[in-house]
């Protein structure tokens, strides 16, 4: 329980046990620590990027229990007991996920800053809807911004990966 209030908040630690890319971690975090900082600075997983910092651009997207979140605006304590997938955990035994492969083959990135978020969001899209129309894809991906404006190639890459995944070349990783 809290002690008597004072003007400056006193330090508080919260036990954070969670799994990142299949590996279990036990950390102590303060309430104000953001998930993105914990993942990048304490776990050294730098695929997720800080960009807009206001949940608009999607560069910091992580999958938390399979659902997309903006790690830039989510306190780390919200990950208690949960499983996180970052872009570093998507390849299996050195084999790229079909989405990663398709982004390479179809030129789905330019500077690459938005790519981890694009691919994780697209993974969820294809897990839920293996055969999306372009309109469905654009609605789903509306919150992921490519500042290089390379959208055409990104859409092509995702649709190509969807086709490949439907043909059973490799099932999506959960």
């Amino acid at each position, binding site marked *: 329980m809290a002690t008597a209030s004072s003007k400056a908040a006193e330090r508080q630690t*919260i036990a954070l046990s969670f799994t990142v890319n299949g590996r279990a971690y036990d950390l102590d975090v303060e309430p104000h620590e953001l998930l993105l900082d914990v993942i990048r600075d304490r776990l050294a997983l730098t695929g997720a990027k800080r960009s807009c910092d206001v949940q608009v651009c999607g560069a910091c997207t992580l999958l938390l229990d399979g*659902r997309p979140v*903006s790690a830039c605006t989510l306190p780390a304590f919200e990950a208690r007991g949960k499983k996180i997938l970052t872009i570093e955990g998507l390849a299996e035994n050195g084999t790229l996920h079909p989405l990663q492969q398709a982004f390479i083959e179809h030129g789905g990135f330019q500077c690459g800053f938005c790519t981890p978020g694009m691919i994780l969001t697209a993974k969820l899209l294809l897990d839920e809807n293996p055969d999306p129309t372009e309109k469905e894809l654009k609605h789903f991906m509306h919150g992921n911004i490519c500042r290089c404006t390379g959208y055409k190639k990104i859409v092509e890459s995702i649709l190509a990966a969807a086709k490949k995944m439907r043909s059973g070349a490799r099932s999506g990783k959960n």
Partner: protein
Amino acid sequence: MLRRFRLEEPDTIQAASDLLVRFGDAARLYAGGTELLLVMKEGLVRYERLINIKQIPNLNQVKLDNGAISIGALATHRELTVSPVLRESLPALVQMENNVANIRVREVGTIGGNLCFAEPHADPGTLLLVLGAKLIAAKKTGQREIAVENFFRDAYETSLESDELLTEIRIPRPSAAGGLAYLKFGYLERPSVGVAVRVEFNGGEKKWIAEARIAVGCAGPAPRRVEEAEAPLKGKSIQEATHLIDEAGGIAGRASQAISDLHGSQEYKEHIVQVLVKRAFQQAVQKS
């Protein structure tokens, strides 16, 4: 960067209300945090404590209750888009929710938080205004019902008292002899204008408009129902109302209390209100 704060995690409404009394202005309720944490990161507001109310059980349920649709305040936008009850009874609300912000905000943000933060450029309040929703506010000593018309006071200001929590949104189930639509337009991340239109027909024959409700959001400091624009449509046939809808839309624009801001000038927003009223009316009639 967030400044340091302490976290409280009550598991009952009473305990949360107690904490609000105990810490007053130094504390704020926290649910999804999609609005609150942004302004805290910017340093625009500062709280010594956040009271995380997500440990309180059963506050995210969506169900039919005695003929009304009951939505728990902690239901996330996404939970509303996949709710079988809402898909069946209120598809216009599902559609509105499916277009709130983006997929990550919908995942984390709650409808209760959206309403309580009262950011002017938001969608849900406007639609709730034409649905005659009631908001349930609870505190330690009991609860009360606030008509949604009386909930929004101003930008970022609601009629909740300092020790109250919004726990539930109750919506009368719309009758089958009516139609409903919510449309929005904007060129930034948030909408410049949102318009909700609901029409009810008499006798199920769809010949006469027994009731029309129009609400406008985002344009001004708070969403508001524009009864001035509803009056001309009442008692009219669809054909007559279709001829009058430009006029009604114009009235709605002038009554919307639009202000000039980043999302457009007053004049621009008033014009968009007029266009959206017409389109939403056409959609509502088609959906009836």
